[in-house]
Structures are given as structure tokens and as C-alpha cells.
């Protein structure tokens, strides 16, 4: 019996703000793209329905639903082993959401669900800066949180329970800032958008010195960055402190995993020109001495949305085909 291999998959990236759906072929070419605002669907059932509707429409308009092999989904706090989103701190749906199962039941196709950082790492490994590397770390510096995934001997290290890489909630300052997860001093409370804004507020309160930041209509990391461009001392101090802390977090990570490179991705990389120098200095200061000067610190050159959805599509190939309609 001769058969034809299906050559297209669906990649879905569920972000804090936007959920993106792509039809991707075997070569990583995005054939069609669709997206909607995640927060418009605070009810998980209507969210899943919305995804399914759009997946079917996308597939039908581009070759037919039966040409799709499988689906890959990436989201924060998702677990590849259980196929669920578990206790996501920043998403609207709480508790344990059996997303892979819900999608598979409605779509009738195999579904793989993985952590967003896992998808990003696969994306960088397949199409980006980590191509050809066996041991590397991908840090996803998001607007709301920090995730990561590291590759060990050429495979993504998922850990015993599927939760590896949760560096955002490592404690970098003992008894530090209160984090949304309930603990104190977590890395992401300093490097996320809200963390940088809080640091700016703290610095402005510490002294009476003038600063362009004080007259900003809205305090955002990019706005603070533009103050840096105008040589504002306090604005630079915001990024110096943030970079110092991020450097420690990454140095501890590198000392443990000994990666060839640490690749930075995510929305917060847009402030790298101001954050980078102090982060790199802190990293070199704190990393294990035999690795000093050897770990490449790279900002991803791929477009975030494209790469994340490509990473999700790469995940789709890792599940066995399944069809309700055979």
C-alpha cells in the first residue's frame, strides 16, 4: 500500500497578549498566518473553540484540512509531558488545563503542547543562532515573565516532570521583591516590564535629582531607554541595576549548564542596547572562572513572532500522527 506523507503542520503560539496560528510546511515556510488577542477569551472553553475555528479556516483556505499532519502549541507554564498548561501565573486561565487533549478532541489531530521557551529553543535550534549547537541555553525575556530551555547533548532538557527551565522564578535577591508567584526576590520581578518600571520608581524616590523620567507621560522600558539616549543618569541607573541582576541569574545558569551560547529572545530584548553592557559585565564577573569569556551571549536575530510559531510547528513533528477520521 503506498501512502503520501503529509507535509504541513499547524504551529500555535499562545502569548500573554497575542495568540498566533500558522500553517507551516516541512521546510519551515509559513504558508499562512492568523492571530487574535488572548485576553478576549478569558474562558478557556471559548478560547479553545476560537483556536479550532481559526485552525480549520486557515487549513481549508490553504490546501484543505486533510493535508495537515499534526498541531504544535507553545505557551508559558505548559508541560510537554502532560500536555497541559499548569498554574500559569500570568494567563487568564488558572489551575491545570489539559490543552492538548481539548484540542485533539475537537480537531481530531495529534497535538503536542510545550513550554513557550521549549518552542523558542527548537526554533533557534532549527532556524536560528543555535543551529549546529548541542549544548546551549535560550532565555525568553518576555513582557511578563522569564522562561528558558536548555539543550543537553543535542536534545531539549525537559526535566523529570516536564518543568525544566523555570529560571524566572529563581531567587536572585534573598527576601527581595514580592513576586506574583507568591515568593520573594524572583528574577522576573526585576527583568519583566513591571520590574523595570518598579526599579525606575524606586530610583526616582531615592533622591531628588532631576531626571527626564519624571516628566514621562507613561513609564515604560522603551521610554526609559529613550531617556538613556539623551544621557539621563537616572535612566541609565535603571538599566544598570536590572542588567546587574540579570547577569547574576544568567551566570548561575551558565555555571550549572556550561552552554556554548546563551541566546536571548523575547519582547524585552528590545531594550538590550541599554541593558546589555551592564548585564554582560555582571555575567563575566559572576560566572564560573573556567567559563569566563567563553560563553557567547547572543541576541536572537529572528523575528520573535515568526520564530515562536516556527518553534511550535517544530513541536508538531515530535508527536506521532493521529487522526480521528481514518
Amino acid at each position: 500500500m503506498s501512502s503520501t506523507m503529509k507535509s504541513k503542520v499547524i504551529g500555535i503560539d499562545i502569548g500573554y497578549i497575542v495568540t498566533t496560528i500558522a500553517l507551516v510546511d516541512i521546510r519551515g515556510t509559513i504558508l499562512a498566518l492568523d492571530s487574535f488577542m488572548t485576553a478576549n477569551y478569558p474562558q478557556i472553553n471559548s478560547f479553545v473553540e476560537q483556536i479550532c475555528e481559526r485552525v480549520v479556516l486557515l487549513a481549508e483556505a490553504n490546501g484543505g484540512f486533510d493535508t495537515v499532519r499534526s498541531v504544535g502549541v507553545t505557551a508559558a507554564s505548559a508541560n510537554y509531558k502532560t500536555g497541559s498548561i499548569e498554574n500559569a501565573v500570568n494567563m487568564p486561565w488558572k489551575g491545570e488545563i489539559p490543552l492538548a487533549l481539548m484540542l485533539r478532541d475537537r480537531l481530531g489531530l495529534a497535538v503536542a503542547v510545550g513550554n513557550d521557551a521549549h518552542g523558542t529553543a527548537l526554533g533557534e535550534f532549527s532556524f536560528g543562532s543555535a543551529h549546529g549547537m548541542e549544548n546551549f541555553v535560550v532565555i525568553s525575556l518576555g513582557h511578563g515573565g522569564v522562561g528558558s530551555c536548555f539543550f543537553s547533548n543535542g536534545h531539549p532538557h525537559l526535566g523529570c516532570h516536564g518543568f525544566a527551565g523555570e529560571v524566572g522564578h529563581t531567587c536572585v535577591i534573598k527576601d527581595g521583591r514580592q513576586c506574583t508567584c507568591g515568593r520573594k526576590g524572583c528574577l522576573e520581578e526585576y527583568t519583566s516590564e513591571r520590574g523595570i518600571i518598579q526599579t525606575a520608581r524606586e530610583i526616582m524616590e531615592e533622591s531628588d535629582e532631576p531626571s527626564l523620567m519624571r516628566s514621562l507621560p507613561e513609564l515604560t522600558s522603551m521610554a526609559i531607554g529613550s531617556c538613556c539616549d539623551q544621557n539621563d543618569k537616572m535612566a541609565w541607573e535603571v538599566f544598570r541595576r536590572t542588567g546587574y541582576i540579570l547577569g547574576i541569574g544568567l551566570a548561575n545558569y551558565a555555571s550549572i549548564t556550561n552552554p556554548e551560547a546563551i541566546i536571548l529572545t523575547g519582547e524585552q530584548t528590545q531594550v538590550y542596547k541599554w541593558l546589555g553592557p551592564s548585564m554582560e559585565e555582571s555575567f563575566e564577573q559572576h560566572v564560573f572562572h573556567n567559563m569566563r569569556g567563553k560563553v557567547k551571549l547572543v541576541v536572537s536575530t529572528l523575528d520573535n513572532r515568526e520564530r515562536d510559531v516556527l518553534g511550535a510547528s517544530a513541536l508538531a513533528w515530535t508527536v506521532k500522527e493521529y487522526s480521528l477520521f481514518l
Partner: protein
Amino acid sequence: MILDNMKTRVVGVGISLAKTTCAIVDLGGNIIASTSFTTTDYPIISDYVSVLCENILNMVEANGGYESIRSVGISAPSGNFQSGSIVNSPNMPWKGIVPLAAMLRDQLGIAVALANNAHVMALAEHTFGAAHGMRDFIVVSMGGGVGSSIFSKGQLHLGVDGFAGEFGHSCIVDGGRICGCGNKGCLEAYCSWKGIITTAQEIMAESDKPSLMRDDPKLEADRIVDYCKLGDELAQETYRRTGEIFGIGLANYASIVDPEAIIFTGLAAYAGKWLIEPAYKSFNEHVFHNIKEKVKFIPSHMDSHQRHILGASVLAWEVKEYSLFK
């Protein structure tokens, strides 16, 4: 080629500052014979290699002959598997990069593998100890410093240059105690032999409370454990504080690696519940919430001397056979 007579024995060499031990170990992990000598008697590396070689040959000739040995595995502080060298060891008499595996192979004529003590410990625990059957776990050893080793998907995770697991110098308390490496707040500054003694001294200075520790002219970290067992409050507080900081470092580690278990060797195993209980409590307060209470803490029950040798023997099986005389 039809092979009728597989070699079933290897030589395991365990190098520590005090002693170098060589043993013949068979496929079943049985130690057939062993011999040892004082490492520091040979500060010149070429002398050391000659003596090591002599010891091995004499032992082997008296127990089955040279032909019965497949390969050699060496466990050394600051060892590196990729280069087969001891690299920039702060404590050993030979400085810089010492290509010990190559030197020994040239003199012995058979394959030699060399790796870090911490990595070899993990091999031993995986093959003969508490980690038997586990695929993702961490082995932590506390002694002069703090070393560790990661297993990912059943394989040792060495990292790109073979230095993975160096979490002794992760910064746990920003601006904390000065560490021997020059940085402040390293885990080792609190959770090593010396760090524990420093903590004990701090505690004794804080109050006038009586303690067995005060009368001890040469206070050692293992003696403090003995005082804990005798009910000494200040000794118990010493390990409680150490455990609290240790727990934070371990939590950060586990949030990244998500191990099934953390296995403790060295002083951590000797200190038992006095260290492990406060560490476990602090660990669960700081670890990523989805794996809270899921990671097992296991003090190793292997005899440390045996573990060193058996681990080195497992390593010996990792290199391809080689013989100068084929």
C-alpha cells in the same frame, strides 16, 4: 570479527588531595583488588604519573595480568572529560592544564578516561546507588567546595566544555560573604567545610549561650554534626542556617533542571537531617511552584571511598578500547 573473550575488568583510579587509590573492578562492580599511595608525595606531575603507572601495573600483574584489563577511568578534582585533563585546580599540587589521561595512556598503552569527581560520583550513584533507574537527577557533593553533576535523559550532562555543574560559585546572596574565588555571596562561602565553620563562629559571637563548639580548639564541620547529635543548640543552629541558604541554591538549581531527585554526598550526607531538613524546607519555599514537594532529597548511602572507585570504573567503560600492542 568474532569476539569470544570480552574483557570484563577495568581499573578505576580515584584521586583526592590526600590519597590516590587504584582498583581493579569487574563488570558486576566487584572490587577485585586495590592499592593506594599519598598524592602529595609527588608534586612533580611526571613523577606522579610514573608512580601511578607502576602501582597499576603491579596490582594488575598480581591479579589476572595486563591482558585482562580493558581500560582505565580516573576521577580527579577539577577534571575535564573532554580534554582528559585536570584544569586549573586550586587545591592540587599540579597547576594549569595537566593532560593526565594522555600521559597515563602513553605509559600504560591502554585507553584512559578522566573526569571531574562530581561527574564520576553521579555515574556511581546512577549505576550502583540511589539514582539507579532515574533519568533526570542531580548529585550534589559538599566538602571543601560544593560540586554537582546533572543527568539529563539518562546521560551525564557535561556541557560544551565539560564544566557543567559548577554551582558552588553561584551567587546566592548579592553582596554577601567574600568567597575564595574573589566574588561575594557564593554558595560555597556558606555551604562548604570552611563556610560552615565561619557560620558557627558568627553564631557563637552573637550570644553568650554555652556550646560544646566553644571548647573545641580545632572546630571542624563534621565535629559540629556530632555536637548536633548531642543536642547542642548552637551547633544545630549552625546547620539550620546553612541549610536555609543551601535550600535556596538548590531551589534555583531545581527550577532550572527539574530533577527527579537530589542526591547528597560528602559532608551533606554525613550531616544528615541536621542539614537536609532545613534545606528541604527552604527548598520548597523557593522552588518553582509546579515541582514543589515533588523533588526527592536523598542522602547517599554509598561508602564514599567505594563510590569514588566504582564511579571511576563506570567511566572506564565510556571510552573506546585502545591498545598500543594490537
